[in-house]
């Protein structure tokens, strides 16, 4: 009798195990489509579809990917991208939510590459997720383009072969902010900062202080405030800022924190005493409009959005985006678009070297290294991180609310060349900032 019970138990366990194994395989089998003439290039797109980062970053990114892939497949993108798909192969996207722990992201990345057979992955907004996925991408030899995460650590900690990032890293945002601030206030005596207490806020503030130290050694730091992420209420911090004589307050806030901080400090009269610098302010300027005081310094993590130059590619991009989604593309939309265009440029270049045949992933990787290509808002050069990290120009400007037209505008736009605000290829950003930004070419 004992034997029977064990056998029954064993049978149950084995069948359960088989069931668990079969379930996901069945799910995958259902989603595999019939193969067309030219096999499509399967592209995994990872972006926040749920959670607090979905609204300002994730959804504009997804929208941008959707429209870019559709237009590329139809061959409707203006020159030099007028050829259809990736070297003739249509792109078949699969969208995955970035919400969840980095363990979830690593698991889903493996699923994308090993289960769903993605040829490449364009993904990740959170720097933590980028850092977690990078070693796995290397292990799986999976071509991965990070599209929005900002940390400079990705290629500075160890060289990577299969990972690329066309979007410049966050050091440039704060170096350019420092240059712009000093252009407006050449005799700045002191400044303060309010940044969220997590990696993005800490890094932004550290880079800004280091750049200020190099450019204006006499300017001192008054208040260094690091409220916790998504605090939402900044009464105490605003009081502290009101006690200082800082002409300038630096902030890398985004999302709800940015908007509530702008509304709250406006009510307390802080902007009358200090000019605010929002390095990621562009995502909020259309929603808040007149609530942002004139003269506020606004950044867009590159020359994106309203600061983008008037090129045919940019005009086309804004046109199709506004037609489809009834809103202007903000910088995450640009980041996604330039990442996909980078991938296309590398793919087409590799195919051209092969006489038009579909290239292998290793050939695309080789073509991507050190590549120069045109994004909707700027020329991207994969110049640092062994040719894996893009650099581009950046623009800063001052906010103005056009009362006559009821429209938010950016005026006094200053563009900084890529070499002016990015470290050279052989230096980490921290070392470059600490050394006083040697070799920066600003003209």
């Amino acid at each position, binding site marked *: *009798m*004992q034997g*029977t*019970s*064990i056998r*029954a*138990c*064993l049978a*149950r*366990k084995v069948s*359960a*195990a088989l069931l*668990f*194994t079969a*379930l*996901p*395989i069945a*799910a*995958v089998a259902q*989603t595999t489509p019939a193969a067309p003439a030219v096999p499509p290039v399967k592209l995994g797109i990872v972006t926040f*579809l*749920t959670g607090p980062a979905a609204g300002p970053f994730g959804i504009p990114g997804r929208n941008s990917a959707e429209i870019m892939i559709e237009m590329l497949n139809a061959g409707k993108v203006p020159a030099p991208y007028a050829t259809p798909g990736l070297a003739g192969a249509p792109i078949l996207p699969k*969208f*995955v*939510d970035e*919400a*969840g*722990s*980095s*363990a*979830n992201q*690593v*698991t*889903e990345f*493996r*699923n994308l*590459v*090993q*289960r769903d057979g993605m040829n490449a992955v364009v993904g990740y907004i959170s*720097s*933590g997720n980028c*850092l*977690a996925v*990078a*070693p*796995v991408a290397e*292990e799986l030899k999976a071509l991965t383009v990070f599209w929005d995460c900002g*940390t400079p*650590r990705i290629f500075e*900690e160890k060289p990577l072969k299969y990972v690329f990032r066309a979007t410049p890293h966050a050091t440039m945002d704060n170096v350019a902010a420092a240059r712009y601030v000093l252009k407006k206030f050449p005799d700045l005596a002191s400044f303060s900062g309010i940044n969220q*207490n*997590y*990696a*993005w806020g*800490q890094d932004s503030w*550290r880079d800004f202080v280091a750049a200020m130290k190099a450019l204006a050694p006499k300017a001192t730091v008054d208040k260094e405030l690091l409220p*916790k*992420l998504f605090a939402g209420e900044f009464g105490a911090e605003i009081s502290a800022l009101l006690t200082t004589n800082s002409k300038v307050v630096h902030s890398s806030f985004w999302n709800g924190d940015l908007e509530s901080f702008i509304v709250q400090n406006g009510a307390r009269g802080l902007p009358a005493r200090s000019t605010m610098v929002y390095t990621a302010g562009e995502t909020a300027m259309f929603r808040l409009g007149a609530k942002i005081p004139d003269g506020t310094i606004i950044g867009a993590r590159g020359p994106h959005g309203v600061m983008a130059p008037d090129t045919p590619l940019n005009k086309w991009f804004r046109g199709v985006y506004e037609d489809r989604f009834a809103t202007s593309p903000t910088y995450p939309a640009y980041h996604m678009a330039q990442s996909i265009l980078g991938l296309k440029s590398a793919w087409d270049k590799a195919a051209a070297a092969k006489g038009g045949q579909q290239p292998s992933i290793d050939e695309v990787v080789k073509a991507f290294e050190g590549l120069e290509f045109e994004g909707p808002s700027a020329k991207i050069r994969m110049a640092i991180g062994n040719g894996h990290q893009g650099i581009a120009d950046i623009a800063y400007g001052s906010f103005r609310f056009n009362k006559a037209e009821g429209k938010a505008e950016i005026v006094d736009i200053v563009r900084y060349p890529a070499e002016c605000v990015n470290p050279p290829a052989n230096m980490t950003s921290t070392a470059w900032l600490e050394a006083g930004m040697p070799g920066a070419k600003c003209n």
Partner: protein
Amino acid sequence: MTGLRILLGAVILGGLGAAAPFTPLWLISLVTLAMSTGLVVCGLIILWRGGLVPFGQALFFATGAYTVALSGRWFGLTDAFLLIGLAVIMAALVAFVVGFLLAQYREIFFAMLSLALSMILYGVLVKSETLGSTDGINVTQASFFGLKPRGPGYTFALFWLALGMVFTAWVGVSAYLGSVAGQLAGAIRDNEIRVEYLGISVTRLVHLKLTISAALAGAGGALAALSISHVDPQMAYWTTSGGFVFVTILAGAASVPAAFLGALLFEIVRTIAVALLPGGWQLILGSVLLLTILFVPEGLGSLMIRKRAAVTEKGAA
């Protein structure tokens, strides 16, 4: 726990290990990660049976994970067995220290105090820029007794290591639950005063249970760190603890193998939900938990135990 059942467990796990080279790699990584959750849940069961629900088990999980990451980063240690051993010791040590306070409390007070402690660790990690703040740090790839498998070999090695850890935890925890100290868990839940009258210190017993469960959580954290190759403060966040409690509800406290099956089921449900509903996968996870509570209130394990009990009765007759 009979010798026969140990043999059976060894055969099943050995079979899984032998099947690994014929299984898709993504599934192996997924199972390895699920086993790390299973180890933590195994420890939760020990507390659960005594009526204690910690909402801060992530404290020990993260301690284990960061021990692995920092031992590699600061001291250049790479041996997987050594790293896991260190992680277990560190997590148990932390539990032993905080246990002097935590073991005094029961019910919601125990749950909230453990939650508070894990959130302290989270806060400290987020504020430490040298530890990568919220971005976390990478874990160097481990070696196994001097061998350094890379690529798919590394995934297999970690999977086999996970199976070994599962086997050890299963045998150890089953033995503990069968011992006098383990059997007293139900008595503690029902009536602490009577247990004290038996001449046993309930506080000390709870302290011991907490330390054992922390050691298991540390082992789980170490395995997760090696398997993901990255640690971040999210590992100490309350949602991580909530995830462990979720799986314990799914698995139930009735059986140790159910902890691992529950963790596996949870991970598979999550990954299918993400694939099916990219913008609303949390809905599916929540529904599964609701349905479990409605229809299998004692968890998956109760199904296995109930049937086995019925068979044994028939056998005795």
